[in-house]
Each structure stands twice: as structure tokens, then as C-alpha cells.
């Protein structure tokens, strides 16, 4: 049996799967913000958690690094009561991710 670690594979399918996971957690976090869910901070924490570690083969690390910074600042601004600034960062992070996945599907 061959043991495969995510870091050793970087096919488009695995890269897409990894990014789709993050996209789902972003969706949940942003919806929690729009609907003022009492669990919004935990949802943002899940989105942050999904961004930890390297991407498969490290091929999407540059993007993920950008997303980490945006989500971290978004969570901080929301905790400080600035919804608009927080939402701006989350929306940009989500958009960068979505368009990256779309481009990856065409490679």
C-alpha cells in the first residue's frame, strides 16, 4: 500500500477539492455575517481553520496566504463592530478563491 500525503500530490482534482472545501467554509461564514448569526465568530473561525497548512503540492499557497490575511482581518474588524469593513475583506477573499477555482478548471 502506498501512503499518499496531500503535500505529495498536486493534481488539478485534489487542488480543486481542497479549494472547494475552503469555499464552502467561506460561504458559511459570509452567510452567518449577513444573517447576524449568534455563531458568526465560530463560523469565521472555521473559515480560518480551513486555510491552515499548505495547499496540495504547495501550488496554491500564494493565494491561500492572501486569503488568510483577509479572513484574519475580517474577523478582527467584525469583533470590533465594523461590519462593512469586515464584509469587504470576506467578500474579496471569497471572490479571489472562486475565480482561482474557475481558472483552475480551465487549465
Amino acid at each position: 500500500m502506498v501512503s499518499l500525503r496531500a503535500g505529495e500530490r498536486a493534481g488539478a482534482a485534489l487542488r480543486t477539492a481542497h479549494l472547494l472545501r475552503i469555499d464552502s467554509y467561506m460561504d458559511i461564514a459570509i452567510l452567518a455575517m449577513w444573517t447576524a448569526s449568534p455563531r458568526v465568530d465560530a463560523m469565521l473561525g472555521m473559515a480560518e481553520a480551513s486555510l491552515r497548512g499548505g495547499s496540495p503540492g504547495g501550488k496554491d499557497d500564494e493565494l491561500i496566504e492572501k486569503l488568510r490575511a483577509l479572513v484574519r482581518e475580517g474577523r478582527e474588524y467584525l469583533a470590533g463592530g465594523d461590519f462593512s469593513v469586515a464584509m469587504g475583506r470576506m467578500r474579496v477573499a471569497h471572490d479571489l478563491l472562486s475565480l482561482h477555482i474557475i481558472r483552475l478548471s480551465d487549465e
Partner: protein
Amino acid sequence: MEHDIEALTGGAMASIWSWVRAKIPAGVEVFDAHAHIGTDVDGRTMTGDGMRERMEAAGVKKSIVFPLNDPNARDDFSGPNDVVWRAYEEYPSSFVPFFRLNPHLDYDREFSRCVERGFMGLKLHPVSQEFELDDPRVVRLFGMAAETDLPILIHTGFAMQRIVEPLLPTVEAHPGLRLILGHCAMVEVLSATRAFEGHPNVLFETSVVQAKDLYELCCSVDPSRICFGSDIPYGDLPSTLHSILAAAEAAGVPEEALPGILSENIRRWFP
């Protein structure tokens, strides 16, 4: 915090904002087709001064503005409509004033008052005012707007469940009626582009729409039918400009079409 461009464009947003600024073609006077002034039942507010400061900081020249879902709307939105009108009187070169109505209630008097006063369009929100787009009272209102050549911006974004099917008969009955689909009919974006493709007086407005929806929009309709919006105070100018510019680039929209999306397509109606 009503307006803080530093927070909106600093930190992790700094490189994003630089990209946006570089992407806006030189000489383009950005026109925001969707923004609010007033107070909402959810507590959000925006003043005319606050709106102007945001526009200046982000390099936006003109904005369509209309009331939020105001707790002081009473029966006819006359109070919130007056707030928008006062902002317009203070900054006539910056704002294009739209008024808002509740189609459930007696709207004839406020419609006439606002048209006579010089309001340049009408905003309708099917979710906040809880109506369907094929409700007879709404269809009558569409007819009144067509008769007076008054553009209408309809919320077709978050929480909408029926858009194309109830709206298409009105668009077909009034081909001259100028409609702005706020948030670009996002849940039905592909069927909306197909249904309204042959109706050049229907524009797709982009505020707070996800880039993947905007990608599909940009791939499916001529760019001359797309106009930028921010939805301030729910959205902000840097992130909403990023959404449409990034989606347009990914969709292969030619650079020559960007002035239209950012300004000229909506400016044709409000020179």
C-alpha cells in the same frame, strides 16, 4: 463607523485596492448605480455627507441613491424620500435621486409628488416590502413608470425566489420601460440573461454579488448591459469594484468594455 476608507483599503486590502485602481481605465468617471441614504430597520445608516466622502475617497463621481427600509417610512415612504431629496439638493452633481414606495399601500399620491419634484427613478424592494413582481399592484406601478418614462431599480438579490418568470410579462408589455436589476438577478442570473437578452432597456447591476455569479453574468450577456453598483452601506466601493473587475477579467471581457460597465452604460440614462 460610517466611512473609513483607510480601513477599507489598508492592511490585507492594500494590494487589492492598488490592483483595482490600476484596472480602472484612465479618465473613467465611475458611476455607482446602487447606494442608500437614510436609516434601515436593521440599524444601518448612511448620510449624504458620508456617502459623498466615500465617493471622493474612492474616486466615484456619481451615485444613484434611494432610501433604505426605513423604520420611519410610515405609509408612503415620504419621509425617507425627503431625506434623499435633501441630500440631492445639497450635492446635485453627485447624486441621482430615486424614491421608494410600498406597493401594498396607496402609492399614487407619493408617486405623483416625487415625479413632479424631479426624482429620476423609483426603487422597489420585493423582499423588504413583501410582494411578488407579478402582483397586480406592482404591475400597475410598472405601467405608471413606463408611462412617465421613469427608470426603476428592483432588488433582485438576497432572499429573492422568483424573478424572471414574474417579471418577463411586464418587460414584454413595456419594452420602453427602463429597468435596473439590482444585484443582477443573481439566483437566476443565467436564465435572466437569456430572458432579457433581447430587451436592451434591462440593465444588470452588480452590487454585493459574488464574483462567481458575476463571472457567469459577464460570460452570458453583452457588457453594454452591465452596470457597477456598491449597495452602500451594505457593500463598500473597494470590494464591489474588485468583484466586477476581477470577474470581468476572468471572463475575458475586453478592456475597452470596462468604461461602459463602470460608468457609461448607466450614464446613458442619467447624463
